[in-house]
């Protein structure tokens, strides 16, 4: 079943054309890796899927389970199940993780006509997901990402993903900044969240992450287009040869 369909997507930022006709179909249950040189447009694609206001779509469409994403605002897309693990997560001084997470979860539940979580249910969920990602106790009372190390921020992204249980999860260079143990824990977490009803886009520069999160397909994005699609062997090939063939 088609979970995500991107058709002929063109987008620009600050007047500069970045995405030049992206076509991508992802079925439920699949993991797709996107690789490609710096500046190719990988993060731009994430920004456009999630509805970042700076990016302008001039052509094409994006459907999530048949629904038109481009007509929704960012928060509606998130509540429909789009989740981005940011390449550079924002810091939010003064807003505690607990307050942030409770608000996010409850706004999503309200959107789906579900009752608000009780304090006990919420805390149990927090505890469970924290344990899954081997996160310390103290972080829940800290402000969102404030003073977190690079690796802690990335772990926190996956923690939030576990809390929100998205339909489409986009991991934008989640592996960068993670130490070897954290990489394994995060990858295990991502694998546990995998189901027949969701799908993942994993953006990475390194084959290593794909040893843990095994992709069904690997795409090469270069200069705003998907220039090649293959299976996990393509990542091994790229690791060895680089992107010269696509320049």
């Amino acid at each position: 079943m088609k979970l995500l369909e991107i058709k002929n997507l063109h987008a620009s930022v600050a007047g500069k054309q970045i995405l030049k006709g992206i076509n991508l179909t992802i079925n439920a249950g699949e993991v797709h890796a996107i690789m490609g040189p710096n500046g190719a447009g990988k993060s731009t694609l994430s920004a456009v899927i999630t509805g970042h206001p700076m990016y302008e779509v001039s052509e094409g469409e994006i459907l999530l389970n048949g629904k038109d994403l481009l007509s929704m605002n960012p928060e509606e897309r998130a509540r429909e199940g789009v989740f981005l693990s940011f390449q550079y997560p924002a810091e939010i001084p003064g807003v505690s993780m607990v307050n942030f997470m409770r608000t996010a979860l409850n706004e999503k539940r309200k959107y789906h006509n579900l009752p608000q979580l009780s304090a006990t249910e919420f805390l149990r969920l927090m505890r469970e997901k924290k344990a899954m990602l081997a996160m310390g106790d103290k972080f829940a009372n800290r402000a969102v990402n404030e003073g977190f190390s690079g690796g802690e921020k990335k772990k926190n992204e996956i923690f939030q993903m576990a809390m929100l249980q998205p339909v489409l999860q986009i991991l934008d260079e989640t592996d960068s900044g993670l130490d070897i143990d954290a990489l394994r824990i995060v990858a295990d977490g991502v694998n546990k969240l995998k189901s027949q009803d969701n799908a993942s886009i994993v953006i990475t520069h390194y084959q290593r992450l794909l040893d843990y999160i095994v992709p069904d397909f690997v795409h090469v994005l270069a200069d705003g287009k998907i220039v090649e699609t293959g299976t996990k062997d393509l990542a091994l090939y790229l690791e060895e040869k680089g992107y010269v063939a696509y320049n």
Partner: protein
Amino acid sequence: MCEEIVLKANESRDIVIVNEPNVRLRISQEEGSQLRLHIIDWQSADNDVHIEQVASNCVTEIYQVAYLKDNQKVTTHTNVRHLVGGGVSKQVLRFVLSEHAKGDFLGTLYIAKDAQKSCAEQSNRNLLLDDTATMRTRPQLEIYADDVQATHGATTGQLDENALFYMQQRGISRQAAERMLIVAFLSEAIETIRNEEQKEKLLNTIDSIL
């Protein structure tokens, strides 16, 4: 409101002033006295606070919160005077302005020649929620002693778009996200209210007027 207050030696006093249109405070602090003053405005106000540390080891804390819109105006003049050394003063001022609101802060800090080992801090941070609001900040430092620690900082900016998008990406509406950022911004100055009941009430009130 117009008052002259003397804090006796080692006396500790908390004062919370909410929405007083006209504040004239003259406070004199004796040896080791401690003052914690909160001025909280979501209506127009003119605040003038003059505080003198006339003996050593005094602590002066001033917290000002202003949340203004619709042509409201708050003017605050603090004049903190370290006449004798060994005292501490801390000023935290937070203005959030929109819809042609105006904020004006003049912060005079005086440290007398013999008031060595004084420690003074002044922080004024402001948020403009649209481009019709204006803020004027004038720190005025008159420091005549050489062995002191004095810091001051003033910034005026907008809500962090990056943080807002991050929150929206987690399903939080734009409006709720803005509210959370504003509350977070103001609470730094409100959290220091020692009376828990009063603090909760104020935080709730502010949340409801946002």
